[in-house]
């Protein structure tokens, strides 16, 4: 059971996509006065679309993230 917790911490270190999913896709949205909150930015950027857009279905990826 401790082993599972240790693995969980290790998984946390490795998975970039998890960090991106959370930092970009979740968290309180409060608009700063300098930048628009990311929620307001039209996500036309490929890297963001790939991350935040995730895959809509469970079928194999076609390289088109939504």
């Amino acid at each position, binding site marked *: *059971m*401790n*082993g*599972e*917790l240790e*693995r*969980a*911490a290790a*998984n*946390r270190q490795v*998975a*970039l*996509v*998890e*960090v*991106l*999913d*959370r*930092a*970009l*896709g*979740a*968290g*309180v*949205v*409060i*608009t*700063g*006065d*300098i*930048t*628009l*909150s*990311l*929620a*307001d*930015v039209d996500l036309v*950027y*490929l*890297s*963001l679309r*790939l*991350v935040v*857009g*995730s*895959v*809509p279905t*469970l079928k*194999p*990826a076609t*390289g088109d*993230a939504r």
Partner: protein
Amino acid sequence: MTEPTLGCYVYCVVRAGAHPWLDGLDGVDPTFPVELATHDNLSALVSKVRLEEFSAEALKRNLEDLGWVERTARAHDAVLARALAADALVPFRLCTIFTDEAHVRDMLERERDSLLEELERLRGHAEWSVKLLADPRRVEAAARERSPAFAATTTNSEGQGAGRAFFERKKQDQTLRDEARAMAEAAAEEAHARLRGEAAAATLLPPQHPELSRRSGQMLLNGAYLVHRSKAAEFARVVSELGERHREIGLDLELSGPWAPYNFVAASEAKDER
């Protein structure tokens, strides 16, 4: 129009008096230390950022650069992890930037009630991620074993016309795939229901893009669970137990955490309201 050269980046908000350990912690702009901006009973974790890198204009460019996004997101998350180790926190979305600390304090004043409410609710809790990945071949093999009909029919098709046998087999393959899929999805639903029962709150996230997750297999569950510190070990035990049970049918469970409660703050629902 002369732009100020520095902005004030906000990572998260904690209760004033929570003293997260900030020594040696790099912010999203490593030139500047992470500090506390306090107003009444709330503190924001902030650091200065150069606007040549973090203005709205510059961000449009930088957000296209996955390397930049990775560095920034990891730095952001590292600050949240320190705050989480100390006390409850309300995580802010990446790249929330104000003109200066005074404006951050204004925000703390404006949002005080909802921030305090969130901190109270989240106290002692962290977010855990559980994913269930299916290896289609292993799942199909398990489905075949479970349905003796499949094993029998493959031999029965001998003696029929070659064309007919071909279509028969195709039909069977499809049925087997459907069966395997139904079995895997039922397992994912069951796992989520069980884990939700162990958590204070739970939410389903969209499955991750396979290229980015660098995982093989199909992600059938991407769950986030809010779990109290005192129940984390038990939660991990349940994940282990579910993992062992599902491994034989080609499903792997993966636990990661503890995460700041990114997916359990009320305002994160704002993305659905817009």
